[in-house]
Structures are given as structure tokens and as C-alpha cells.
């Protein structure tokens, strides 16, 4: 098939789509705004639930780019977008105009900017970090406080930026719970003398083997789970953090001191995605993610014929789901290229 498809976004979904299409002999241009492909995964240490090293999946994705004749455009964003008679004309920031038969949007997600939850003091208190910061610490292998000391008590706050009307996000990011459990275990592995507390609203262990991981965290790693939304954090005179939460199952407010606070930042529609939606006239939902035409049978199809979605630009997904969704997008594109015109 002598066709050309543009894939916007070089994260997990974009790479998978590009690889699969390229394997089928379709010419693919992959546009990535960063200098490097791989997306958020590059910063991740291990993956839940089996705590496999993320580099294994990274290298799987890297091989796609190397093995195929994919035209890779890094440091590239989209400036203009035009549709005309079954053809798409995409102008990049470098002034290049690409001509394609179909477009796949795989702009992914941005992590919720935790500073927006001012009461937790991210960016203000020395030892409040996000889940992403913690992954970087894991990669470096040193879980230390700002003053270089080793933390003894670490609190993990679930649902930061998710299920929170106050920041405009009604939805559940669905992966933060299991990430919290995974990170709690990893903290305990790195720091066997530490105590880890997870503050959750609900434990949403919906995926395969998530519940088992949760159980392991409790039983083997002694992680404490306290049900309640942390309302505020403050820095104490000895440079610790004191948090207030209701222990809803005890029915009593609780306060405790922690050395470090990890915020489980939720997933939001990426800024790049918002731009693409604006430029391309693509519909977004109330949750600001791209709205597919049919949530059940057409979650890859956009409101514009010939433009398809892949991955977390439509909703929070884990890597397994992202790759499945990307492969589904490939089927949609092939169908479209065969019959659509």
C-alpha cells in the first residue's frame, strides 16, 4: 500500500502505531516535540504490577524506530493543519509541509502539575515530591531528603489532581493507586528501615495482579494504608512535614509528621494535545481528553474522518492498554486507507 500516515507523538502509543504501520509497508512520519522518543516511560524506573524494569519496554520501542523506515521528526511541533479531499497537509514548526493520507494523534498525557494543589506545598516545601520525581530518584538509586539525610517516614498521597473538583478533574486517573503501591514497595526495598504510609480515598486495584501487589505491600513490606484525603501539609521547625488527614475508618482526624511526602500526580490531557485539538478542530470531552466517536466500538476514531487516536490522549491507560489501543488504531487506519477513499 503506497500510503503515507503522520503519527503525532512519539511516546508508547505513537511508537507502537508507527512500528506496526511501517511493518505493513505504509510510509510513516513520526512527529515528536521532544529531542527523544519514548515519552514518560523514559523517566520510569520499574513497571507495575510485575515490577519489570521499564528499560525493557523502552528498548522494545526503540527497536521499532531503528528497524523501520520511519521518518522521525524530533523537536517538532505542528503549526498548521489542513484537510483537503482525503489528504491532510500538516505544517511543522520548521516550516516543512507534510502530506498524508491519514493522521494518528498520539499526544499522550501530561502529569498533573502538583503545585496546583497548593495545600501540599509542592515546589515550596523542601521534601514534597511527585511520583515522577520519585521514579527519577529510584533510577539514580538515592532516596534522600533535600538536606542529604535518609528519610525514615514517607507519606504517599493518592489522587493528587484526580477525582478532585477543586482542580477541575472529576475523573479517576486509575493508575496512581497501583503506582503508589509499587513505589511504596520500592521505597521499602531501598530503605528497609523506613515506614511508608499511603493516604487513599479508595484503593482502585482494578488491573490484573494489582490486588496481589497491594496485599504484598501490606503483608511483606508492612506499608500502612490510611483511608482519608490529606487536607494540608506544613513544614515544621525541624524541616519535617506535618500532615492533617481524617482517618475515615477510625472516624477521627489524624496528624502525623513525615520526612517526605510523595504526591501521586494524576494524568491530564497533554498541553500538546490541547494545541492539536485546537489546530485540527478535534472534539474533546468534559475531561479535556480527546473524545472518540464511540467509547465502545470506536475509541480510536475522531470526529474527523481520517484522523485517529491512539493511547492516553483519550483517557488514562496503563502501558498494556496503551499498546493495545495503538494496535487497534492501526486496524482502523488500514480499514480507512483501504475502503475510506
Amino acid at each position, binding site marked *: 500500500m503506497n500510503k503515507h500516515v503522520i503519527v503525532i507523538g512519539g511516546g508508547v502509543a505513537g511508537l507502537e502505531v508507527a512500528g506496526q504501520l511501517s511493518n505493513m509497508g505504509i510510509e510513516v512520519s513520526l512527529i515528536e516535540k521532544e529531542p527523544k522518543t519514548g515519552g514518560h516511560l523514559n523517566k520510569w524506573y520499574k513497571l507495575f504490577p510485575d515490577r519489570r524494569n521499564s528499560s525493557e519496554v523502552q528498548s522494545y520501542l526503540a527497536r521499532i524506530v531503528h528497524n523501520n523506515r520511519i521518518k522521525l521528526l524530533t523537536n517538532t511541533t505542528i503549526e498548521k493543519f489542513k484537510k483537503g479531499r482525503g489528504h491532510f497537509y500538516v505544517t511543522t514548526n520548521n516550516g516543512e509541509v507534510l502530506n498524508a493520507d491519514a493522521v494518528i494523534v498520539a499526544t499522550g498525557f501530561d502529569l498533573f502539575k502538583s*503545585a496546583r494543589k*497548593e*495545600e501540599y*506545598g509542592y*515546589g*515550596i*516545601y*523542601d521534601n514534597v515530591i511527585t511520583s515522577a520525581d520519585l521514579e527519577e530518584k529510584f533510577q539514580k538509586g538515592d532516596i534522600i531528603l533535600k538536606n542529604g539525610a535518609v528519610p525514615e517516614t514517607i507519606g504517599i498521597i493518592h489522587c493528587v489532581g484526580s477525582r478532585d473538583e477543586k482542580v477541575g478533574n472529576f475523573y479517576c486517573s486509575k493508575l496512581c493507586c497501583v503506582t503508589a503501591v509499587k513505589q511504596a514497595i520500592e521505597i521499602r526495598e531501598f530503605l528497609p528501615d523506613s515506614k511508608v504510609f499511603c493516604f487513599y480515598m479508595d484503593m482502585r486495584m482494578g488491573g490484573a495482579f494489582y490486588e496481589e501487589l497491594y496485599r504484598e505491600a501490606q503483608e511483606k513490606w508492612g506499608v500502612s494504608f490510611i483511608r482519608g484525603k490529606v487536607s*494540608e501539609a*506544613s*513544614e*515544621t*521547625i525541624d524541616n519535617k512535614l*506535618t500532615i492533617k488527614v481524617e482517618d475515615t475508618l477510625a472516624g477521627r482526624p489524624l496528624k502525623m509528621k513525615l520526612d517526605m511526602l510523595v504526591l501521586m500526580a494524576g494524568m491530564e490531557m497533554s498541553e500538546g494535545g490541547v494545541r492539536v485539538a485546537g489546530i485540527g478542530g478535534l472534539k474533546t470531552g468534559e475531561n479535556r481528553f480527546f473524545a472518540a466517536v464511540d467509547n465502545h466500538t470506536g475509541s480510536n476514531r475522531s470526529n474527523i474522518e481520517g484522523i485517529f487516536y491512539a493511547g492516553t490522549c483519550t483517557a488514562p491507560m496503563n502501558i498494556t492498554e496503551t499498546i493495545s489501543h495503538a494496535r487497534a488504531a492501526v486496524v482502523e487506519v488500514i480499514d480507512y486507507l483501504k475502503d475510506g477513499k
Partner: protein
Amino acid sequence: MIIDGKKAVWKDYQKEIADDRYYYVRSCVRQNFFPGSETAFLKIMREELNKDVYEHPCHTSCSGIGYHSDIVPVETTMTVVARQFAIMTEAGYENLMPSCITSFGLYTEILDTWHHFPEVEEKIRKQLKKATGREFDKPKNLAHASDVIFKFRKEIGAKAKYKLINKNTGEPLKVVDHIGCHYAKMFPSKGIGGAEYPYVLSGMIEEWGGQVIDYPERRHCCGFGFRQYLVQANRGFSIACSKEKFESMKPFKPDMIITNCPGCPMFLDRWQYVINEMEGKRYGQNGEGIPVFTYEEVAGLVLGYDPWDLGLQMHQTDCEPVLDKIGIDYSPEDKYNLETVSAFSKSLV
């Protein structure tokens, strides 16, 4: 603490404050609590900053205490507030500057309600017309008096006779700022610096040489809480709130507390006395209490006003330790001399 992070937050919460021609609305309770504050404020505004501040003898309580105590229905409160607006309109002013935090919060809340529900505004207009025959324009600018002082903090700083610095050690005084709950907790965007890290008093403290103390219970209510205090049986909650704050700030060894609300200085001041009576506990250094000031009092002190003219003798927790630290010249024997005080008040009329 990462100060740059705080500054970034402060940047997000800027607010427009009118330059001149203020319609000043006094607080109903402050004149009993700390009568020198509003007097000093007017003196600073008019004489130091040469601003046009108008006040009208017919303005009443905004009924906020009644509203927050679940005694006065919201429509009544709105009509009372509408009358304040009408008086302002009649006097030809547009910039409303309440002295009270609860009033400020209430005005903000009512204006926001009217914004979202114009039909309510219409109804109130009709009611006001029917009851008093008055009509009103909504204020163009609504700023709390402390916002205005914040706006002119540099000007005041430039004229300052004293700085919030310990003259013996040269160290800045450690100052706890306490913001009234109704200032920004309901509408964070209406407060300078927002609700989490309010900057309105911190800005003054920094400008006048002090060091701001950020302690864990900084968000906590002073304990006034209207219903909590008004019913005697509930006062245990009220005092427990203040105690929680004192316990939390104590390790930071604060030299003074500064507030911008009518109730807060009252309760932070008086409860220190009561706690000491009940439990024999004091929270300041050398077995003293922590002196509590209003921002107007602090501005007056900085400008070199006589402490007794500012009404500091009305404080139950002695403020002399701070006066001594700053090196303010005062005469201890005149503390309760009514003649000198009344002379100051008369000088303003």
C-alpha cells in the same frame, strides 16, 4: 522552604487595588476591641499617604456576625449590604474599603452571588428600594483595608521611623502573620497571595524589616468562629483553636503576631491570658505572652506613633517586650493616662 516557590504562588494571586478615593466601612466590633486601630488607619491614609478616605456616619453593621451565626437570613444581609453600597453611591465613591475581614468576605460573597444569579441582585434592589427608597451601584473596586496598606507598604516603609528589627541584636523580629479566615479562604483569588500562602501581611512584615514565620498551623482559625464564641458552653472549642496555634508557633520563638481581622487579635490576645489562668502556660519568651497587633497598629508603630495613642494599653498580653526590642520610645507611666489618648483622637476630627 523554597521561597521562590512561594513567590511563584504569590505571582498567581495579584489583585487590583484602587489608588485613591476610598469609601471606608468601619467594623462593628473593632472599635470596642482595639479602638486605636481604625483611628490610626485613617490618620495614616489621610496624613501620611494623602488619600481621600470617606466615611459616613449612617453606615451600619454589615450583619456578617449575624449571618455567620445563622441568625440573620442571607436576603436580609444582602439588603443591609445593598444599603451600604447605596450610601457609597450617594456619596459619589466607587472604591469600597471595609475595615473588617468578615465584611470583606461577605461583600465578596454577595457580589459573586449576584454575578452568578442576577435575579437575586434584582430582587435585592427592589427590596432596598421598597424599604429605604435608595438605589445603588456596585463598587468598582473592593479591597480590604489591609490590601490598601499592603499596596502602600513601601511608602510607609520609606517614612518609617522604626523597623521591625531587634535593636540589640540587629536581627529581624520573628513575626507570625495571621490572616482572617474570611479574607481568602472562600475566594482565594480575591486575596493577595491566595488562601494557602497569603502575602498581604507577609509583604508588610518583609517591607518593614521583620521576618515572617511559617508554622504548621498557620491556616488554623483563631477560634472566634462566631457560634463557638457566642455560646459560652462552646468557648472551649474557641480557646482550643487558639491553643493549637500557640502550641504550633511556640517552637519558632515568635516575637509578635500580626493580624488583619477584627476577631483574631482579640482572641489571640485574650485567650493567652485565659490559657495562662487555666493552665499556667505562656507561649512567648522569658515567661511572657506573645504580643498581638493589628496591622494598623504595627504601621503606626513603624511610623513612630505613640503606643498609647495607638491603644496598645488595651491589649491583655503586654506589648512592651516588642516595643523594647524595636527600641520604641514610650513612657510607661502614661500607659493608662486617658487625657493623652483622647488628645490624639481629637486631633483627627
